[in-house]
């Protein structure tokens, strides 16, 4: 039976990236449609995600699934080989806890820290460092959050590992440093070096100028306000 899998995404979106990585880990073939999220969102995107109007949107045999974490759970349940969530209910709940922590606390605060104005930066940065310290404790000596191989927590943490480091380089602030967070830093290196991850991450030399442009525009807009 032919399966039709499409993913509406944006090449620079860390949320979109999570869905792509999950599909690749499962070896699922899909058609990728890059949405112009800063310009003109397509009618299809608005049709499939009327509530949030955002990427990523997974379309499986014509049926849409939205919200990156919901998409990840769906992919795990639909294509059962190469599982990236533990089977044991307690371990599964623990993984979901860390996923939520990254999604609601870690990543947004780090993102804020990278973009914040000079006078707010220290406070936000301190908060971000606390979160990173907590996240590092979840590794607990393991290579990946998922153990020997990448799990769902790693997929979600990609937004911290890769995307944040790019933004930091631009801003010239160093949050996720090897001396402050040795385990987490090592994890981000190991993660980015996985072949399946390497193939699918947006290229740094494209992402860097893109985020620079976003930040410059944001600062321009804020200066006017």
């Amino acid at each position, binding site marked *: 039976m032919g399966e039709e899998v499409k993913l509406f995404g944006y090449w620079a979106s860390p949320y979109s990236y999570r869905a792509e990585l999950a599909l690749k880990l499962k070896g699922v073939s899909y058609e990728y449609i890059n949405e112009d999220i800063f310009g003109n969102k397509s009618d299809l995107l608005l049709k499939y995600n009327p509530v949030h109007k955002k990427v990523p949107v997974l379309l499986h045999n014509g049926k849409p699934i939205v919200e990156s974490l919901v998409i990840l*759970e*769906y992919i795990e349940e639909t294509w059962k080989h190469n599982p990236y969530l533990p089977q044991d209910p307690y371990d599964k709940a623990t993984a979901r*806890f860390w996923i939520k*922590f990254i999604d609601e606390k870690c990543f947004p605060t780090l993102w804020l820290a990278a973009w914040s104005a000079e006078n707010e930066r220290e406070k936000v940065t301190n908060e971000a460092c606390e979160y990173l310290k907590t996240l590092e404790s979840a590794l607990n000596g393991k290579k990946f959050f998922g153990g020997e191989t990448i799990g769902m927590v790693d997929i979600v943490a990609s937004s911290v590992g890769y995307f944040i480091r790019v933004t930091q380089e631009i801003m010239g602030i160093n949050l996720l440093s090897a001396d402050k967070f040795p385990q987490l830093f090592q994890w981000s290196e190991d993660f980015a070096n996985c072949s399946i991850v390497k193939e699918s991450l947006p290229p740094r030399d494209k992402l860097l100028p893109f985020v620079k442009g976003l930040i410059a525009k944001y600062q321009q807009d804020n200066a006017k306000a």
Partner: protein
Amino acid sequence: MEDEVVLLDFWPSSFAMRVKIALGEKGIKYKCKQEDLFNKSTLLLEMNPIHKKIPVLIHNGKPISESLIILQYIDQVWNHKSPLLPSDPYQRSQALFWADYIDKKIYSIGRRVWMGKEDQEEAKEELMQCLKTLERELGDKLYFGGQNIGVVDVALVPFTTWFYSYETCGNFSIEAGCPKLVAWAKRCKENYRSVSEALPHPLQIYEYVMELKKRLGLV
């Protein structure tokens, strides 16, 4: 060997009510421990060191926190009756989407409504928009879960006991804008003992809100 189930609770919390409904639906015996959020117990700080929040479910000594994560855990472990989530992956994804939507919107917008600061009017509009969106999703179904309550019903219904407080603090009527949703809430309480037992009376919540507002210097 008998299971030991403890719930760290705070009676006005909509998030804790969700867990109580789920435990009730599954017929699970548990000990309920009331927390004083202004004076958190050592147990709470030990069981949820990162967020220090309720609800926390402690199952045979192991803590699970975050209400939707707890619901999924309960559904997986006690899978003999009253399934909270559909078994079909697509139906599950839709249910999780709406549970996530409720999580992202209702608590924080509702809070802005009852706090009654400068953004109250904006918050009232946002709240009505969200509730109307949910009402559209309910459609003509008896419950979000279909013929029986499911995770979306369990996620949303506790907030309905806060409606009276939102309405009184904000001086508006939720029923006027969302009659079907209010009817759904009544149906849940009438047909599900687990719901009627878990939800405090709206006036009790209002009393609590007024006390909280005093404490926060808002009245």
